[in-house]
């Protein structure tokens, strides 16, 4: 019989991120599919609120590794906490959201446990009585479903790929697992945020706006209009609260001494060597045949694109609607109407 543990961590305010509820939902479904039970383990400074938030999930037990040592995400302490929780639960399968905090540490924990890990999984199903995990290889280019005999099996779930379990808060009883915080030579000193006006990455946004290198290239009148491109893009982000993604070629331009959009960095890059954000909608503005051939597109549910080339192979078959138009002109009009 599999012993399933769902690992969660609190946010800085003691709450749980929505990806935590996605993971709990996955654990609950998996347990049901295997006719088994599941437990929850929470890491954080103080887990009471978080435990109450998932108390109604039906876990057989809620374990906690809590205290000031676990307030900040840090490899040494988080690894010790997760290792202790997995051992306390006697877990054969560990599910966790693939947040930056857990992504930093769970493979290491797997090594300590002598297990195997699947990261950034998008689904778990039970086939022939065995759990089977869907995950990507070669970035988002090859899709697999696999099963394996080794245990413990740690599986991190890509945030946004599974439904959130809706729960009413209840009162939870928590079993504290004593974790001796290891001596660490690392101190987390803070969070560095980009300046507020450049805050163009919004993981929770409804819309991803993808800018291709075409914005910086020569336009129909024979000149490039980077200042205007900047204005149009920022205005649109401001009006819609969209998150900003860029093609690699646009993000790379800084290395070539070209004048580029100053708010754009490699953090915005999506696709092969960039991020693969998940948003309900995506609008790609390719511009003048300079298609952002972004694989990051893959995790966008509704997709539309603006391109001057109706035959563009990166839009055809990949986007729901392709507007054949000059992006400058069209986006100006869109902004006017959003006004």
């Amino acid at each position: 019989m599999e012993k399933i543990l769902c690992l969660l961590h609190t946010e800085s305010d003691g709450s749980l991120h929505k990806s935590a509820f996605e993971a709990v939902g996955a654990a609950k479904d998996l347990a049901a599919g295997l006719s088994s039970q599941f437990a929850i383990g929470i890491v954080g400074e103080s887990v009471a609120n978080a435990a109450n938030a998932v108390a109604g999930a039906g876990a057989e037990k809620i374990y906690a590794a809590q205290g000031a040592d676990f307030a900040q995400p840090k490899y040494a302490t988080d690894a010790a906490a997760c290792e202790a929780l997995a051992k306390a639960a006697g877990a054969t399968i560990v599910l966790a959201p693939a947040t930056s905090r857990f992504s930093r540490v769970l493979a290491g924990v797997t090594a300590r446990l002598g297990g195997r890990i699947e990261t950034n999984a998008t689904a778990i199903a039970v086939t022939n009585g065995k759990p089977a995990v869907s995950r990507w290889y070669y970035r988002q280019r090859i899709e697999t479903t696999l099963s394996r005999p080794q245990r413990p099996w740690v599986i991190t779930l890509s945030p946004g790929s599974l439904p959130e379990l809706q729960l009413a808060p209840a009162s939870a009883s928590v079993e504290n697992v004593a974790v001796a915080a290891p001596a660490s030579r690392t101190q987390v000193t803070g969070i560095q945020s980009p300046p507020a006006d450049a805050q163009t990455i919004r993981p929770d946004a409804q819309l991803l706006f993808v800018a291709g290198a075409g914005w910086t290239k020569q336009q129909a009148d024979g000149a490039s209009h980077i200042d205007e491109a900047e204005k149009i893009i920022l205005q649109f982000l401001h009006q819609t609260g969209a998150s900003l993604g860029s093609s690699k070629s646009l993000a790379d331009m800084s290395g070539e001494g070209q004048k580029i959009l100053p708010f754009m960095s490699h953090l915005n890059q999506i696709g092969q060597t960039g991020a693969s954000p998940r948003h309900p909608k995506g609008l790609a503005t390719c511009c003048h045949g300079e298609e952002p051939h972004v694989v990051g597109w893959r995790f966008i549910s509704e997709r539309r694109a603006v391109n001057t080339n109706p035959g563009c192979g990166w839009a055809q078959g990949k986007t729901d609607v392709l507007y054949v138009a000059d992006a400058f002109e069209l986006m100006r009009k869109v902004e006017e109407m959003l006004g």
Partner: protein
Amino acid sequence: MHMNDQLDQTADDSLRQSMDVDIACVGFGPAMGGFLTTLARGMSDESAPLESRAMPGMPPQVICYERADDIGFGVSGVVTKARGIRATFPDFDPAQIPLTAPVKKEKVLYLLDPIGASRRPALMKMADAAIKTFKAILPYYEDYAFRLPYIPPFLEKHGGYVMSIGQFNQWVGAQLMGSGMVQIWPGTPVNKALTEDGKVVGIRLADQGVDKQGKPDACFMPGMDIKAALTVIGDGPVGPVGRQLNSELGMPEGHHQREWAVGMKMVVDLPESCTLEPGTVIHTFGYPEPEIFGFMYIYPDRVASLGIFVPSWFDNPVRTTYRYLQHWMQHPALWKHLNGGRLRSWGAKTLQEAGRRGEPLLAGDGYARIGEGSGSTNVLTGSGVDEAWTTGVQLAEGVLEILKAGKPFTRENLEAAYVARRRASWVDEESKVAERARDGFGSGFIQGMIGMALAGFTGGRIAWPGNPLRPHERIPSIEEYYRGRISPQEIEAIRADCKARGAALHDALMEKAGWPAIQLDGQLLVSHQDALLMGGKVQAPAGYADHVAFTHPEICAKCAEQTCVEVCSAQAITARAGGGVPEFDREKCVHCGGCLWNCTKANPQDPEHAVLDFRAGAGGLHSAEN
């Protein structure tokens, strides 16, 4: 234009490094493969160890620099008798190299025009009509194609191989690097040969960390000087180092390089329904325009290499290879095999078709020339790879002889050891047969075909007379080319419309002349930009200067044809919206060099050349399947 000092990208020499080696090589293609393979074998002969002069105590230091980001990028599919290659590898096993198969069947198809847009001479139209009239009783007619019942012996490749030169080069390169005797550095363009009083003393690599104009920028690093006792130039038909030497040291009396072709090809996953056997070779002529030749080679695992050659004597000022390739593929005789296939790889390259007449000085003090840039390609037999390989082998044999004798690499010594070998070989003998074989094409397509047959069957003794002209003497105006088909007023309207949009003229003109628009299927019939991205994976590293230069912008701004825009295989040279000097986007260039020999404006300082220069540059195709 080709003066040595003007090629220097920067005057700031204070940071320039210098290194001494024994043999510096430019360009890694089949010729260099033959040279280095033979040389490395000779150098590993322990019974007669050789010592480096540049680094005493070490074996000779041999370094080869290749522009492309990996060896085997951006070359072509071939059918070859592989005589020279098999002489080097007597146990040659095609199964070791992906995309290689022994030749099984050969066909030559004369393609009729199923569309009615092809620009055929009257005689040809009559022949077409006769074929159509008698098609019911002609056993060789099917799908608008007439199969030649007989393949002239000089064209036959029976006993040879179809192969991907990309894969072949990778295979050769891996063995060479594994030998540890030579080094091959990809991603390293060579800016020029270093010359002193008519001697070549080494090479200079391209500057890095420069802007588009070549001026120092962030991370500036001047190209290094590589000093060598011998510089081997195998940088191909449009290689800047070879052309620099042609200009600087001159060509032999009566020699010139005025005949070229651009070959554009695709590697295609054939549809499951395709029954063509691996080793099948199909050559075509007659369509989409009479002057355009086509090929399709079938590799193992239902993969084909196919494409067309658009020769310099096809005097259409708006000739556009990609568009013609799409029409050619859709010819019923080919489309029945291709429909449902998928593009895997795409690319283009220039062929130097002047052959023996384009042969430069093969050797001089401190240097030797091998491969296509040395005039080795045989235009009569349609063969270049094996010839190139063999010239490399011949040079290596000569170099080993010179090294063993402890002699210097002087013109006399290289002529005795290398040029004499080449002259005594089949490569030279066959090149003489081919020398005048294509002269007839200057007079017309039919004259050309007759001329080739005459030369082929008489061993080169008889050919159709003619003298190839320079592009600016040859290429007519657009109005002249389309006379009787599109009126000057219509051309003017199209020109004005395209100028405003910054678009090339060819699509609009072709469609006006009756060519149907291409219905893209996203798989095999894809937009030109998609061919670059999906097929060629074209890219260029940052920090290098533009390698296509408009040397006389005032002339380009007024140019009515801007053939460079029309012929560009990769849409890297584009019309400037509103008119003016065309623009060049380095990141799209596949280094085919077609722009170099299609420019219709003579260079005022050097009328043998034009006002567009093609220099050392990095990047290009990123596929080793071609």
